């Protein structure tokens, strides 16, 4: 274990501990538990978006793919009568297959063209949900998406219970963050960052750039598809509007405020901004304006995002110790 590793591990451990104890800390308050669940979804959305960012692009289709997972799982329940335990994985597979198919042309585009193309993909996904009224329920969406029940012989856990759902969401978001973190610190992650910095140089070191882009995009979309399924069975209602461009844009804001170079960035950004958003909810009409002010202030006052805070603190201590 290197010197840098230890504080990191302590920070992640502390975060997980707080997350595990959170429902007890808030005295099982239903509203605060709900906020916790929303935080989990937003962390998963931002972290998987960050995985795509490690290639050097931002996908505005990301919320759309979350929607694919959500709709797939909801339809598995309604048309096939299978619970979320099946819908979750089917949703992930549908999402992965679609992402693989779409990324073949999408990943041939670069920079601003990727940005526009992904935007179009996100919009087309949403419009399809709206257009095929009989199948997807049109703009009205799909209602009555039941949460699952876990039957463990002796005990039954009904995930209609909020606290139970919180822990389910926590489990999946932790797995998602862990997978993204591990990939990012592996050889594969090194390749992604090389592509991020310079595609041609990456190719000159023998890296098959296109293949890696396709795989990365597919993995990230598969993971967000799982998040989408969890979202659907929690809200019990989804509509095309739940997964529009705005949702992708908020995830992007989470990345910018949190920081773009480590997985801590999207996690910190999604947690803090979801809380800010809930605090501002009371202000009604002015919420969006306040949100904008918070965004601009954080970019101006904390360039590099929340992830730079540990480094800043360390720098202060080192300066003091040199005195």
């Amino acid at each position: 274990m290197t010197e840098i590793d230890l504080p990191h591990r302590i920070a992640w451990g502390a975060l997980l501990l707080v997350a595990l104890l959170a429902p007890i800390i808030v005295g099982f308050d239903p509203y605060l538990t709900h906020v916790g669940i929303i935080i989990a979804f937003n962390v998963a959305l931002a972290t998987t978006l960050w995985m795509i960012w490690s290639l050097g692009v931002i996908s505005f289709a990301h919320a759309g793919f979350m929607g694919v997972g959500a709709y797939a799982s909801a339809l598995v329940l309604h048309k096939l009568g299978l619970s979320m335990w099946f819908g979750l994985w089917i949703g992930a597979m549908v999402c992965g297959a679609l992402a693989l198919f779409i990324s073949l042309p999408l990943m041939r585009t670069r920079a601003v063209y990727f940005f526009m193309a992904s935007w179009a993909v996100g919009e087309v996904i949403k419009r399809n949900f709206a257009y095929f009224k009989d199948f997807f329920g049109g703009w009205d969406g799909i209602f009555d998406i039941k949460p699952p029940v876990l039957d463990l012989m002796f005990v039954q856990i009904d995930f209609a219970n909020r606290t139970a759902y919180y822990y389910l969401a926590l489990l999946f978001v932790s797995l998602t963050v862990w997978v993204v973190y591990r990939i990012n610190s592996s050889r594969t992650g090194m390749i992604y960052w090389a592509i991020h910095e310079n595609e041609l140089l990456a190719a000159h070191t023998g890296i098959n750039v296109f293949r890696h882009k396709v795989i990365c995009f597919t993995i990230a979309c598969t993971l967000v598809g799982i998040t989408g399924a969890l979202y659907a069975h929690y809200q019990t209602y989804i509509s095309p509007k739940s997964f529009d461009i705005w949702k992708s844009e908020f995830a992007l804001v989470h990345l910018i405020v949190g920081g773009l170079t480590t997985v801590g960035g999207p996690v910190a950004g999604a947690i803090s901004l979801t809380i800010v958003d809930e605090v501002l909810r009371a202000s009604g009409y002015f919420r969006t304006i306040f949100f904008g002010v918070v965004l601009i202030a954080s970019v101006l006052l904390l360039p590099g995002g929340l992830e730079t805070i540990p480094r800043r603190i360390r720098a202060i201590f080192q300066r003091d110790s040199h005195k």
Partner: protein
Amino acid sequence: MTEAVLEIAGLCKRFGALLATDNVNLELRAGEIHALIGPNGAGKTTLMQQISGVLSTDSGSIRFLGRDVSNLGVAARARLGLGRTFQISSVIPEFSALRNVMLAVQSRQGTSMRFFSSTRSDRSLIEPAMENLVRVGLADRAATAAAEMSHGERRRLEIAIALALDAKAFLLDEPMAGLGPEGTKALTNLLSELRNVAPILLVEHDMDAVFSLADCVSVLMSGRVIASGPADEIRKDATVRTAYLGGGA
């Protein structure tokens, strides 16, 4: 005569009305340094890019290790062992020197078995990378970001990357450019050792370096090879002198 590692026949590249390379024939044999000289705009970089696969080729063929690579992409040619440096420095500035080389090492080894394990403690990656940094004399700069290295150090780093890729031929485009006399001397020594690892196709304007290193020299002018042969013959060649006087180099 030893067999050719790299064989170029009838290579052409057209940019609109301009023939940047015009029916170029060239051979790079094992153990030799083959210098490619010529005035600015002669088509040297274009030729190097055609060989490495950055530029497509209009006609002609490129054979590498007995295999036609004309239709392969950049990455596939790199994996076969065509190692190159750019005219403009070609390392990832945000990566440390070590990480730049590690990227090349993993490209040789593949990711398959280690899709999920951390690179920071991966000795099978760090050790070979470190070895190659030692070979080019950059061991003490391993942790430095490439962006913070000097120009000469970055050129060495490029060579370490090519070594890590297990290059079967080096394509070096003006490695001496921008180096001071000392840097040029040090790099000249490094290149003369490197030739034992793999042959070098060397584009260079520094004539002292060219004639102290090269076994063979080809002179390119307006896309055409106007002379080619052993270094000392080319040095005496009258047409080459006129070409150079005309080119103003």
